């Protein structure tokens, strides 16, 4: 457990208050309150459709909330000017689920891309920095490959190298283990832990992989149907007696009671003559 994470005097890096989000008419996030402390690895866990990806998109300011407030480094992101948001985003790194590497650029150019856009460093310095980050994620020597030539694990590591190239203070991971075999996945978990220790960066991981979540997390937030069931340390989550949390932890499906009339109505409500 990271000590900074438990210190109440430390300002939270992320503060979410009363966040509500919709897709069309459907309420996806329901009054979410969340705090992520400086230096911790905070895992947001939940099954498919729990709203965790939507929560991540809101934390990244890719979606606007219907109501509620999101503060990153103490700044309310929904009220920031375009310039202030631009500056704020330079303090953040994101590793997307599919990597989101630019297919037209090779791995080294991908990693160097944020440096080229945001700094005035000369070409050689940029290339050296990009190679250093590729070393960190064990991709030394693969810089000249195109993204299409990489394996799933290598794509995730290249995306991670790009995410940390600006030395961010806050790092987001979307499903780091998805689609990877257990060994590669464990390798990536180790990398995440090493990064936090080496860079002191705050990390938010969104995942549905239990094993990975418990291996890396300082605290876990469990989301279900758009609501937070619990935010606590890994031990507290394991001991939580909420049946829905236990269902998720034990990979049990929830029993759904079916009302016969409602079921019939669902099957026939848009058919004519019934």
């Amino acid at each position, binding site marked *: 457990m990271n000590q900074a994470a438990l210190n109440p005097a430390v300002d939270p890096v992320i503060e979410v208050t009363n966040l509500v989000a919709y897709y069309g008419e459907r309420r996806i996030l329901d009054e979410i309150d969340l705090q992520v402390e400086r230096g911790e690895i905070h895992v947001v866990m939940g099954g498919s459709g729990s709203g965790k990806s939507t929560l991540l998109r809101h934390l*990244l*300011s*890719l979606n606007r909330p219907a109501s509620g407030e999101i503060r990153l480094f103490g700044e309310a992101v929904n009220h920031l000017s375009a*310039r202030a*948001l*631009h*500056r*704020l*985003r*330079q303090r*953040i790194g*994101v590793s*997307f*689920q*599919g990597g*989101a*590497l*630019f*297919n037209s650029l090779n791995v080294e150019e991908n990693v160097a*891309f*944020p440096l080229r*856009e*945001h700094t005035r460093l000369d070409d050689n310095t940029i290339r050296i920095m990009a190679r250093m980050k590729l070393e960190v994620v064990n991709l030394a020597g693969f810089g000249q490959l195109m993204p299409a030539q990489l394996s799933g694990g290598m794509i995730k590591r290249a995306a991670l190298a790009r995410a940390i190239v600006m030395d961010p203070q806050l790092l987001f991971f979307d499903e780091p283990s998805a689609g990877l075999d257990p060994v590669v996945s464990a390798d990536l978990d180790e990398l995440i832990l090493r990064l936090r220790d080496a860079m002191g960066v705050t990390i938010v991981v969104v995942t549905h992989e239990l094993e990975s979540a418990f291996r890396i997390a300082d605290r876990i937030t469990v989301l279900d149907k758009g609501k937070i069931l619990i935010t606590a340390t890994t031990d507290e989550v394991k001991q939580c007696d909420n049946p829905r949390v236990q269902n998720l932890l034990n990979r049990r499906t929830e029993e759904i009671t079916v009302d016969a009339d409602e079921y019939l109505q669902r099957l026939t409500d848009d058919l004519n003559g019934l």
Partner: protein
Amino acid sequence: MTSLVRFIEQTGRSSLTALEEIGYHAALFSESLYWLLVGPFLGQPVRLPTIAAEMMKIGVLALPVVALLSFSNGVMMAIQGIATLQEFDAESQVVPGIAYSVTREFGVLIAAIVVAGRSGSAIAARIGSMQMSQEVDALRVMGIEPVRHLVAPILFAMLLMMPVLTLCADTAALIGGGLYTGIVLKLSLSTFIDRCFDTLALYDLMQGLLKSLVFGVLISLIACANGFSVSGGAEGLGRATTRSVVLSIAAIVVADMIFTYFLNR
């Protein structure tokens, strides 16, 4: 009665969607201009190598096909013109006919239709697949505006290359028309060219060039907007690409009609 209500409802909904789309295109256009003009002062310029790469793809690589189509068009106009004018014993008037219609109308139209088909579809597919693989989101979270990085270079390259392609199309069509006329009417190519220059005023050439700028803007915006709107996997990408080409060509022809009306009153 119900079907009438449904018809009115659908018409209203379609009109709203169309208005929304026009608004989105206008926003893309103004935002691109903003980044082109103000970006350098904010330390976020539109990158020259990106513009050069787009100019290559949009303009230089389209040159052979534009030249071939325009040349063929010039020959066709000469064949039709001579055949029609022969009925009035006025076949020598084919030269001004070709000169006017090529510079005012067909040169730019062929260049625009080729670019809409070639680059319009490619741009929509490229931005669409970036949208699908979260590359556009990645740009945003890196603090790089997708409009600055993706749309502005395309728009600028289009504004530079469309007039160039139009001039090339005009030249190729005049050469095609001149060669055929030369063979049939025993007129040398240099005499044909001289007579073209005697006929044409700068205004005729400018008509085509002005239209080429408008068509360039239309193609860029329609292709980019369709790329950004991709959803629904490979099928959605295919739909956006097709829609981009069809809408671009429709917009080009309608805009051409409107411009021709106002420029020739």
